[in-house]
């Protein structure tokens, strides 16, 4: 069973992801801020990280860069899940070293497809 780490400061989103992805046979871990997210990523070494951008203290872009900078977590696929939809923002996300960018609100089916693709490659 593939492990997914979801990092988001919005609890309802985390609940939705936890419920939805667990239903689709993923082992889901959640973190409600960037610092916690990085810590958990190092602990559990997930197969995929779902990452929000707009978070207090440490935003998703920084989290992404930190994860990529750490040799241990550098190769974990990262999929941004963000409400920011402008081109610049998407570009920023991709430039930070992520593997994908999905704009909220997302189509759950689209999300599943993307996750499957990334996990396959990573696995």
């Amino acid at each position, binding site marked *: 069973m593939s492990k997914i780490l979801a990092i988001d400061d919005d609890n309802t989103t985390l609940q939705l992801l936890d419920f*939805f992805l667990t*239903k689709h046979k993923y082992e889901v871990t959640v973190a409600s801020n960037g610092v916690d997210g990085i810590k958990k990523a190092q602990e559990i070494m997930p197969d995929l990280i779902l990452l929000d951008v*707009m978070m207090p203290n440490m935003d998703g872009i920084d989290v992404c860069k930190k994860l990529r900078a750490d040799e241990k977590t550098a190769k974990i696929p990262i999929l941004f899940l963000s*409400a920011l939809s*402008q*081109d610049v923002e998407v570009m920023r996300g991709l430039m930070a070293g992520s593997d994908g960018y999905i704009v909220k*609100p*997302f*189509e759950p089916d689209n999300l599943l497809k993307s996750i499957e693709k990334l996990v396959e490659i990573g696995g």
Partner: protein
Amino acid sequence: MKKGFNFRLIFFITVVAVFLIFAKFTAVNPIIYYLFFVVIIIFGYMFIFRPVVFIEKMVSSAVNGDYSIKKDILGKAGRLGEELNLLFNRQMVSQESLNILFAASKTITSRIEIDDVVNMLLDLVHQKMMLPSTSIVFLDDDGLLRIKASRGLTDDFVRNIHLRPGEGFVGRAFSSKETIIINDATKEKNPETFKIEEKEGIMSYVHIPIIVNDKAIGVFNVNSRTKRFFDTNLVKTLITLADYLAVAVGNSKMYQEMQEFNRRLELEVESTTEELTNTNLRLISKVKEMKALNDIIFSATGKFNIDEMFATVIDKIKFVTSVSIAGFMIYDEQNDTLVGVGDFKGFELALSDETPSILAKSFKNVSTFISNELFMESSPDIQRLYKDYGATSMIALPLVEKKPIGLFVLGNKVTGKFSHDDLRFLSVVASQIAGLIDRAKIYEQLAQRVNDLLTLRDISNTIKTEPQLDEIIEVLADKTIRALESDYAIFWLVDDEGENLTPLFPPEYAGKDIMKIPVKSEALITKIFAAGKVQTANALEFQNEAYNKLQETSGIKSHLFVPLKVEGKNIGLFCFCSKSQNFFNDDKIRLAELMAGQTAAIVENARIHNHLKKVNAELERLNSVKNDFVSMVSHELRTPLTAIKGFVHVVLNEEAGKINEQQKKFLSIVDQSSNHLNHLIGDLLDLSKIESGLITLKPEQLDLADVIRKSVETNINQIKNKDIEFQMEIDKELPKINGDHSRLMQVYNNLIANAVKFTDLGGQITITVKEKGDFICSSITDNGIGISKEEHKKIFDKFYQVDSTHTRIVGGTGLGLFIVRTIVELHGGNIWLDSTPGSGSTFSFLLPKIKKKRLSTGDIPQAGQAPFTEKN
């Protein structure tokens, strides 16, 4: 004599023989016999013994070199005596001749004077040789041979002898250069000399030519009272003497020639020295002049400022030439006057004036005026120089460089006159000064230009940092006024609204309403502005009170108007003013135009820059606000929507347990509504971008068919849900376009979604894409409800909705078509609508094709490869 002697001997012998015979045959008294014997002895002694003893004595003494025994004694010795005498004479002469020659050679070598030599020679011949007479004949200048000196000849004879060369023996000897020896004068009977010869008892003589350098110069004559006196040896001796004489004469001549030559040389040297001295003096003065000139020119060369140059030149001129007054009268084109510079400062001479003026004449005719008696000159200007400046002498030289530029005037007080040398020197100075003035003028112009350019550059530099239009205008005005030497200037610029001409310079009028002139007014200044041409004028009536007043109070007499133009557009007007009439000549106009051109560009740049800066600042502010807002909206609206959509999806898919049909139906509505809400948020974000001008394209080469297919795919559910008959008619070989992929998808999405929205169930939608000239035309046609004509244009406005009741049902933000239009237009295309209410609508838009570059390999289709195949 000889005969006499022989006769005596014969007679004596006969007497003795007779006596002896007589005595033999007759008895003679012994006394008589003895007496006779005694007589015979006495006779014998007298006639035989004594001469023999004398001769013996003479010979023996002669052998000892003493010829002093008188030869007349020998005469008594009869013929033998004669012969002996001759012999002895010759012997004596030849003996003596050695001494003579020695003496002569000594004389000749020691004496230089030919007279001395001649006398010495004659004395030798006459005294030592004891020849009765001798003479030396020289050819005189008149071509006659005359006796130069003689011994033993009467004065009479000497006086009377003058022969032509070739005449007589002397003449012949002279001409033939041969020695002539006459052994018996009695035989020859030379007609000229015979009498004298006879009188003098000259029996033989010799004429020896005196030859100097192969040329006979005279004859050496030696006479003897003895016939055949001159034998070979003697003649040789005499010839030698003649040769000595010749040598002496030659030497003397040479000496004389040398002396003459020396004298000439001396004279020549003397004269040459004099000439050299003169030349030297001339050279020295020339060098001084040159140095002075050089001084003047050099001192002035360093001065590029004309006034400074004048001052230097005048100083130097005074120093070098010691004139007491020096200055220039420089021509002033504006006022047609000669203006005094230097010592004549303040002296002005109007050329148009009718009063006769020597200076004006000198300037006009380009002629030099020089006078050393100024008080004699009646013309008023000279009188003024005489009276006011105390000049007594004066010189005025025209300064010409291509054209007359003025006069160079110098004067002396009290003493001092101008010579031709002064005139020449000062003319040279004048010509040099003319060149210098011209050069200085050019330099000043150049310096001014350089200065202007530097200023302009400085201005450009300042603009990059702080483009304050007021400051720039002030600097520009300052510079241009100075460059044009105008007294005043007003810069008018059209204000941003293009309604008024507003003065920006001088500062005291800047922004004053009273100085504003409406562009459409009939004021003279607006007419000049509208004409857009450079104009000059001497006096103007402005329909502007303040301006007229200004003109009056400042005494402005001439104007120069230069329009400020940027790319053919009038943006303002420069007005330069001068207190002088006709001040603005072609040079100034040209300069003004040049500066106006640059100024206009600078002003416009500054304006644009200022404007841009303002806009930028505003945009930046708006941008940050908007960006924050957009991000906030995105985040704050979408985050809850994510939860709603996600959970609805989960519940709807029964992942959280079974739900009934009604629940399913309601949840579907929630799902659609949240979708709608999401679109709304997207549209609002786009709108905000468009409004703030932030929307930008990321163009790439793309295939429209590909974009359309993706858009259709996106809407496929709705199409299927409505059971719509969907058709695509896309040209097979559709050229690629330059466009933003996601934005164009947005366009097609929107138009397709709209078509679907307004088409009833089972309706028809057709997408047609065709090449149309330089564009690709896309049309989305439906057979829906259609739109009324008056709404065709409004439909692309923001927040416009065709039919509000219908809109409510199908949902819409009223932003979609506005965004579509914006995107199409951003791509350089346009969009329009053809529609008939009730029968459907066609939205068509054009997108420009990529312009093919000629001969660029990338764009040229190659065999077997379609350039624009559809991607699969």
